[in-house]
């Protein structure tokens, strides 16, 4: 029987969803990258405990610390968006509610990431 799918579609090997294991793999990549990043973040957290405004600004304005926080924010925004997406897809089956929650998830994860990176950028630039 002649297949309905085109040769290109067969070579790509993807189903009707049009995507494959990218989300799974990205979750693994961001988890491995996240390990050193979270260790560094905890060190920053340690340094910040009880810090007054001037010393907290000084620490976050350090370029190494600022870049580190920005990297961690980017990494974990991707990681947690994917994680929450899996939880929503596992437990929410009403199509409209699912679509709504998935949209809220994307907006919250990337929105918080943008806010955090802009805040760090402001502190970095103004000192």
């Amino acid at each position, binding site marked *: 029987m002649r297949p309905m799918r085109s040769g290109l579609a067969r070579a790509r090997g993807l189903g009707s969803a049009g995507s494959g294991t990218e989300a799974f793999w990205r979750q*693994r990549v961001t*988890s*491995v990258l*996240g*390990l050193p990043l*979270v260790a560094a973040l*905890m060190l920053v957290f*340690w*340094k*910040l*405990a*009880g*810090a*007054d*405004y001037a*010393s*907290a*600004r000084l620490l*976050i304005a350090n370029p190494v610390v600022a870049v580190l*926080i920005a990297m961690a*924010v980017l990494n*974990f*925004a991707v990681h*947690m968006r994917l*994680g*929450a997406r899996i*939880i929503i897809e596992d437990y929410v089956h009403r199509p409209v509610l699912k679509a709504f929650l998935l949209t809220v998830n994307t907006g*919250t*994860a990337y929105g*918080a*990431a943008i*806010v*955090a990176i*802009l*805040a*760090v950028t*402001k*502190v970095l630039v103004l000192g």
Partner: protein
Amino acid sequence: MENKKERQHSRPLAPDLQTYRPTLTMTMSIVHRATGIVLYVGFVGMAAWLTTLATGPRAYETMQRILGSWVGLAVLFVFTWAILHHAFGGIRHLIWDLSIAHTYPWREYLTRATLAASLACAVLFWIALLWTGGHPS
């Protein structure tokens, strides 16, 4: 729209959380997801903290007062444990992804080890922090 009776009879349902007897690895899998959600909230909190730092001393000091209260410190401790538990649990899942320690009893040892390590490290982190770290105020 859905006919409940018809659905029950015509569709095979996968066994779910209510069907299986709880096991340690299963419980820890749920805890891994739960700590993930906690850290989602913590991430938004971190963005809020950075915003107060970028805004000015008054916003920052209000934030620090909230975080420095007993409730704030308790929340920060839970976040610390959640970070460590999700990180150690993540390492466990990465080990399993490599097809290592799948079988009994190693999977149980590994699971117990991540729980013990996360609790111990969280407590040690805060004892050390309160003792020597940070800026005394």
